[in-house]
């Protein structure tokens, strides 16, 4: 019993830390705050998750043996927790290895991971309040004590034949429903393949979002170029624009598909201003005065990158990088520097913000 109490306590502490760090990662404000103070929240969450995983796997069999002799509520708690444990573990592992998985799977993993947490929160709340304040919910006695079931519950216990009936009925209803739908003259898949799916989670490294009232934004292009140029917002709008519909991928696993982005190809801007790039590397700086990332010049020019100023037919929102953000279609979102204010051409490569503090890949290819 003492052993189980210790396990329960360690489990509770690890779980609480993991839940809190997970929620901090989910919420844009707290995530940004941890970025600002330089705390590696993602890595911390992962380390705690590994400890939680090892502890749970090591104690699962023994806890099960103990709880299965206990009242039904204890058994329920055991199975309920076990289901969520495996849901978090599997979706978490998929999120960790997301770079080698298709977008549908990694998006699904992120959604399942998030929703499992939200669905589990009421149980956690009730469990903690029950323990801390000795509050007992008015469960019937057969649920919380080892007593025989009342007839109304006994007769409704599910048996093998009930599951067979469930599958049988479902199969028959599926045949009928599928047949009816097949002959019904409706076309529901049109437009579904190109529909915008997913939503943006806003990640910043500072809580102060740069603002440009009256569009007083300027993009400076300097360094190893034949000339130094400053491009205003209105100059940018006057250049020939290009619109692409592309899938936006975040390195943390989520994606937004079929995002329409309008902007100017960097190579078109360079051509229009007759700028010659004489350096092998480029550093792109954000107007938040903190974030920056670096590229090989040809990644932005020959492979084509965009200076995006519209998304889905609307000017960018402040949190999306208004008035202009960089976008390289073959790279993860962290390479798309928001509030782009400077493109600095150099002969050596800078190590970008997330490469320094998050261990992200320098090139960030999908």
């Amino acid at each position, binding site marked *: 019993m003492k052993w189980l109490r210790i396990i329960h306590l360690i489990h509770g502490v690890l779980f609480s830390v993991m839940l809190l760090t997970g929620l901090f990662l989910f919420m844009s404000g707290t995530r940004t705050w941890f970025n600002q103070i330089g705390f590696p929240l993602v890595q911390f969450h992962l380390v705690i998750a590994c400890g939680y995983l090892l502890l749970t796997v090591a104690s699962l069999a023994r806890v099960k043996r103990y709880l299965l002799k206990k009242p039904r509520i204890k058994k329920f708690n055991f199975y309920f927790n076990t289901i969520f444990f495996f849901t978090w573990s599997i979706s978490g592992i998929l999120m960790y290895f997301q770079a080698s998985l298709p977008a549908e799977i990694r998006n699904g993993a992120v959604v399942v991971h998030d929703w499992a947490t939200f669905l589990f929160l009421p149980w956690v709340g009730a469990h903690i309040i029950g323990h801390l304040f000795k509050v007992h919910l008015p469960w019937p006695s057969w649920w919380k004590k080892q007593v025989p079931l009342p007839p109304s519950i006994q007769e409704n216990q599910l048996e093998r034949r009930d599951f067979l009936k469930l599958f049988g009925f479902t199969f028959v209803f599926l045949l009928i429903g599928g047949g009816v739908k097949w002959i019904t003259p409706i*076309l529901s898949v049109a*437009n579904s393949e190109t529909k915008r799916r997913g939503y943006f989670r806003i990640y910043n490294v500072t809580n102060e979002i740069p603002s440009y009232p009256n569009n007083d934004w300027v993009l400076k292009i300097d360094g190893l170029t034949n000339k130094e140029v400053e491009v205003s917002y209105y100059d940018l709008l006057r250049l020939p624009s290009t619109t692409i519909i592309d899938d936006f991928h975040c390195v943390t696993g989520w994606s937004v598909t079929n995002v329409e982005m309008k902007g100017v190809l960097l190579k078109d801007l360079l051509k229009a201003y007759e700028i010659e790039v004489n350096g092998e590397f480029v550093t792109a700086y954000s107007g938040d005065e903190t974030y920056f990332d670096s590229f090989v010049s040809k990644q932005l020019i020959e492979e084509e990158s965009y200076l995006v100023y519209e998304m889905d037919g609307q000017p960018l929102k402040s949190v999306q990088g208004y008035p202009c953000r960089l976008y390289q279609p073959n790279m993860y979102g962290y390479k798309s520097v928001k509030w782009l204010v400077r493109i600095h051409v150099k002969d050596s490569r800078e190590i970008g913000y997330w490469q320094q503090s998050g261990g992200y890949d320098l090139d960030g290819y999908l």
Partner: protein
Amino acid sequence: MGTYRPLKKVMIPIVSLLIALSITLWLLPSRMDHQWKQLLARTKQWETTSYQIDSTFMYDKEKATTERGEWSLQKSHYQIAAIVSDDSSFDFQVYFEDEAFFVLSGDQWYQNKVNTRFVEELAPLDQPFEWVRQLLDEADKIEVITHGEQVKYKVGFNDFNEYDFRGSMLKEQEQSTLIISVIDNQIKSIVFDVQPIRPESVGILDRYPRHLLYTIEFNPVKDVEFQLPKDAYESELIN
């Protein structure tokens, strides 16, 4: 009032019904869904082949342009005749190469990138199968008619989400169809027959069609090859 005991006798069929209903609504296709997906997949298969193309655009039953040339995913070229009057036409040649296009009119070359208004006016000559896929996104119904080896996909449209076809903004439709004829799995023709309802946003004095008819015929060829002169690459931009 009857007492249903045990309750599971009632609950099991209800739960089964709900599960089946959910699967049917979300996962199972209708016949039209299946045909739509089949056609979409076929467009991707067809665009791997090169074709000789003959097309005609009729505006209010008057011939507006005729186009003849060869198409492939990377390179295409066309001889285009824009009808000016009964006995005269404005002729020019258009070449598509990767992301650029080149126009030879008289002895003069022009060029630009494909995403310009000029190419929109020539659509779907640059990417006919991409154009079909765009239209499929707007489809309201689809029907497959089979006669021996010939299969016709008839796609119907009730309205478009502001679709610009050769300078005419299409919204609500009276009876518009896209008919794709296939023989032995090879595409033979596309007929886009449009009977639009004049949008209220179009001014009284502005020209708006009562009927548009666009026909393209496809004949497979081995490859599309051409070599553009240096003048083409050094020519001035056209919008």
